[in-house]
């Protein structure tokens, strides 16, 4: 029925099936939207955040989603600036995923603040010393860049592309995409970094605090690096999931393999830096404030040493080793495993840098506090996931996201 809208030469599932799937995901989305409005109308008392956990599930989701969305800027950087041309086959999808991640992040921020109507004060009364100001500016600008990168994809939609103006516009935009990719990479470097800085500058919170290189705490660089390293894994992972669900191959092995290889080396270098940083922090920075490493991971099963091992070894060293091994990464199962572990690893890192920073008592007579999110928080955190799935479903169905799809799948009509 909607065949006229579907890209030429590819096959899509019947419309009723598609609509059913949209309805299913839409229901989850509505649940999230309901929770979101509860938070706006009734206030943040709908969450289980408190004066100890001023940052909680959402902020973690925000950081995680931005880190995972890092595939967009890094693939762009690799393709347009480094010249890895084979990545053209995955760059569109990376942009879509990036767009989803960043729009979600902005939405979460709008829900998270106590006075949403004043959200723009961050620009109007900006404090140049604040990492959050840096985040807000770079995030918004980069989102604008992503939107610009996304527009040509939309314009290439089969019917829209028939309009000559759109056709030329999209063509011309593609031509100058390198400029945007460069801008995006530049902005991303800063906002990924400043997100790392958010916890790193908290000199009153020894768990988060890191000493500075140049003007930024070490977490600034670690965050940028880890996003560049693991973001592509997320792109690969979502691609694999999309392929699985649609039952077709969408991106050629070469593009995937290139991305995986680069990602592997990035993760490896990142994790070495992370280990050095952790040792320096544990041996020098924290003890200067009177803290022994053990105090950060004690008293609380939830925040024990396993979380450190899970982050660094399971979610860092292991995927790095798998991905730098040509044989293993060519094996789809190993590849997916490594991608999953890398995504989990970076998510744990962001979790720890938000939640554990809040949880560790600083005053010697203060207590560890546990926090369990309310359903409203869970729903609003799932909201972006549902939104992302929906956007991918629609984009995949109607937009020529995957240039190789036709050649990789020979259809019998």
């Amino acid at each position: 029925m909607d065949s006229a809208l579907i890209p030429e030469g590819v096959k899509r599932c019947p419309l009723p099936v598609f609509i059913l799937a949209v309805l299913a995901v839409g229901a989850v989305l509505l649940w999230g939207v309901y929770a979101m409005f509860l938070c706006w109308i009734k206030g943040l008392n709908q969450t289980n955040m408190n004066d100890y956990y001023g940052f909680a599930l959402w902020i973690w989701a925000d950081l995680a989603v931005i880190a995972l969305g890092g595939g967009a800027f890094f693939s762009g950087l690799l393709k347009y600036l480094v010249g890895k041309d084979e990545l053209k086959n995955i760059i569109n999808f990376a942009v879509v995923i990036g767009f989803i991640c960043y729009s979600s992040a902005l939405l979460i921020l709008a829900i998270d603040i106590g006075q949403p109507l004043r959200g723009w004060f961050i620009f109007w009364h900006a404090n140049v010393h604040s990492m959050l100001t840096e985040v807000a500016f770079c995030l918004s600008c980069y989102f604008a860049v992503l939107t610009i990168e996304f527009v040509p994809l939309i314009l290439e939609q089969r019917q829209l592309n028939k309009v000559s103006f759109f056709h030329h516009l999209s063509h011309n935009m593609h031509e100058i995409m390198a400029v945007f990719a460069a801008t995006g990479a530049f902005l991303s470097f800063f906002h990924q970094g400043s997100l790392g800085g958010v916890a790193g500058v908290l000199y009153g919170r020894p768990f988060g605090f890191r000493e500075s290189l140049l003007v930024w705490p070490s977490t600034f660089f670690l965050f940028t690096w880890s996003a560049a390293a693991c973001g592509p894994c997320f792109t690969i992972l979502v691609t694999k999931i999309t392929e699985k669900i649609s039952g077709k191959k969408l991106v050629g092995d070469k593009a995937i393999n290139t991305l995986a290889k680069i990602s592997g080396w990035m993760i490896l270098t990142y994790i070495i830096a992370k280990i050095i940083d952790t040792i320096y922090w544990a041996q020098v920075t924290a003890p200067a404030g009177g803290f022994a490493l053990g105090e950060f991971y004690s008293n609380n099963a939830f925040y024990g040493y396993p979380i450190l091992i899970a982050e660094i070894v399971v979610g860092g060293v292991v995927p790095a080793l798998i991905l730098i091994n040509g044989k293993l990464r060519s094996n789809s199962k190993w590849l997916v495993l490594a991608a999953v572990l890398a995504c989990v690893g970076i998510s744990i890192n962001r979790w720890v840098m938000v939640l554990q920073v809040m949880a560790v008592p600083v005053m010697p007579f203060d207590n560890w506090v546990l926090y369990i999110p309310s359903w409203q928080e869970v729903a609003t955190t799932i909201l972006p996931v549902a939104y992302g799935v929906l956007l991918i479903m629609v984009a995949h169905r109607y937009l020529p996201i995957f240039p190789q799809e036709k050649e990789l799948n020979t259809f019998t009509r």
Partner: protein
Amino acid sequence: MKIDRRSFLALVAGGAVGTALTPLPLKLTDDLSIWTQSFRYMPNEVPVPPDGAVSTAESVCTLCPGGCGISVRKIDNRAVKIEGQEGHPVNHGGICTLGLAGLQLLYGPWRIKKPLKKENGTFKAVSWDQALTDIAGKLNDLRNNDKAATVAGIAGNGNNTTGRLLQRFLTAFGSPNYVTLPSSDDAMALAAGKMLGKSGIPAYDFENSTYVLSFSAGVLDGWGSPVRMFQANSSWKDNGAKLVQVDARLSNTAAKADTWVPIKPGTEAVLALGLANIIIRDGMQAAAIETNSPSFGAFRKLLNEKYSPKDVANATGVDVPKLEKLARAFAKASRPVAICGNGSAQDPVSSLDAMAVLSLNALAGSINRSGGIRLAAAPDYINWPAPELDAVAEKSLDTPRLDGAGTAEYRDAASLPHRLIQKVNSKAQSPVQALFVCDANPVFTLRDSQNVKTAFEKIPLVVSLSAYMDDTAAQADYILPLHSYLERYEDFPTTAGLAKPMVGLARPVIKPVFDTKHPGDVLIALANALGGAVAGAFPWGTYKDCLKETLADNWGTISSKGYLAQSTLATAAEAMAPAGQMDFSALVKLAEAKPQVPELTLIPYDCMRISGGSIGTPPFVIKTVADTVLKKANKKTDVFIEINEVTAKKFKVKDGQSVILETPVGKAQVKINQTEGIANDVIAMPRGLGHAAFDDYLADKGVNINTLVAPVEDPVSGFDVAWGIKAQLTKA
């Protein structure tokens, strides 16, 4: 001019660019910023407190016996902040939690706004005329049926003009049953009377003490005049005076004391007598003590036989070396003083405690000495001519008091409220047919609350004169709403252990907020409604006339200064037998039998963050209560009891666990706060929680410990002197 598409676009674009270059966008954004800042009309609009003329009004806080001077900041006719009055002789500008939160009592929803009458279990607003006519009618019926003596009245302030007007009303009406709530002062005065020949109010010269030995007295937990005690304690820290706290619990007092002496609760007197024994044994007593008198001989003999250091150590849990050290330190200090009165000492202490502590003070030479204890005359300024009685009253006043106070059994007691309750409950038909309660909350403060409630239910007419919907008002048939303490004049005799007792004067700080009256004016109106001799006993037009007339020449001073210093100390001391000639015989008789301590004892504790008495704890104050004392979980706000690890192990209960606490009179579900600041086999529970009335901010939080403790009658005074009670702990 023709406007084509191109020029139109150019115009729009040019306009946009032009506007963007003007300050207009900046200005608009700034305006928007301001608008968002003051964005109102939200479902719950944030109030903007109106400004107005600023003024200050001074008065006296009457929320506890402390009698602090307060200074209230006002905006027009709104009171916005209570502060301690600088230069006031009681508190020198300091103030406590409750005093600070007084405005929440004044403006809170717990205020009673107009007279109420209970109909079918619910309150209905009635006019003052209606309420007073109804009540007068019922009283006249009783009077005409020879039942004038079945009317009783309980006064929260027994010694000031308000209380005395209630007494006068009852007398003129024909009832002897004017009941006041006995205090620690009463018990001490009685003990002093027995030992020194003339009773007197204890007045402590703490500011000059060098060593304070406190037997479970909550010096920093509301004892005496609380702010004054805090200031005294700080002066001890500055001048090196020592505070030794004997206490079963690491109370705030014990925590700030130089030494904490943990003890089995209820054995304070044993410890005091043990110390007395050591002092006498080693001849450390003051030179003035006449050691040849027969009563001293008997005392020494008793101590020798029954209060040897070893026995005392066994009974109290304080080991012998510590006893020896303590006795020596106390006796050798230059100006020591020993004090008693459990916790905030709102209730009378036992005669044994009082006498044992008085004997220690005598041995140390600390009676009528600088830094010690003096016995002062109670402020005595109410000298009204006796009311003229009619025949009904004459006859009816011959009936004995229902509470038995002043009878052969308890000759020295003025009032025994717990006995009044027992009397009501002991008969099928209540011997009290009408009860007035004025500025008191006996349903909450008397022990064995369930019993008190039963008695109140049995009394056909309960009239509560109260400013707040407290636990007692909620039980009443009529509530006559009173001005709060910030809206009325009231004389406030302040003893509370002050070195110099005084009379304070509360003055209205603001105009009454609601349709309320002064209790004195209520009684005058009621007397007038009754007519005849009762009306004749109240010759004053208003309460204020009465007050002015009562204070006579002193009115000028007291109404401008806010207090009247008493200079009665010397005369009271002179009238007393010299401390050296103390008569120990009453003490010897009491001390023959040592107090028995149950295996597991529940004791109440007082602290400054919970108001333990008739007044509820206002929201600001309850906010300061720790979550290890009170915590809401599963829609229920539980109180935590304190026990230590040894006791917890013994009863197989764990920190945070829900348990059933059971005593011979009641049981309650509570939670465990395991702490190391308490002696073995002792359970401590805060006093002042578990109000049933007031409102959401206070009601249904924790448990009223008075529901778990039964009255214990003192053999000498007859007062209810219960402190601890035997208890059981089981898992919930």
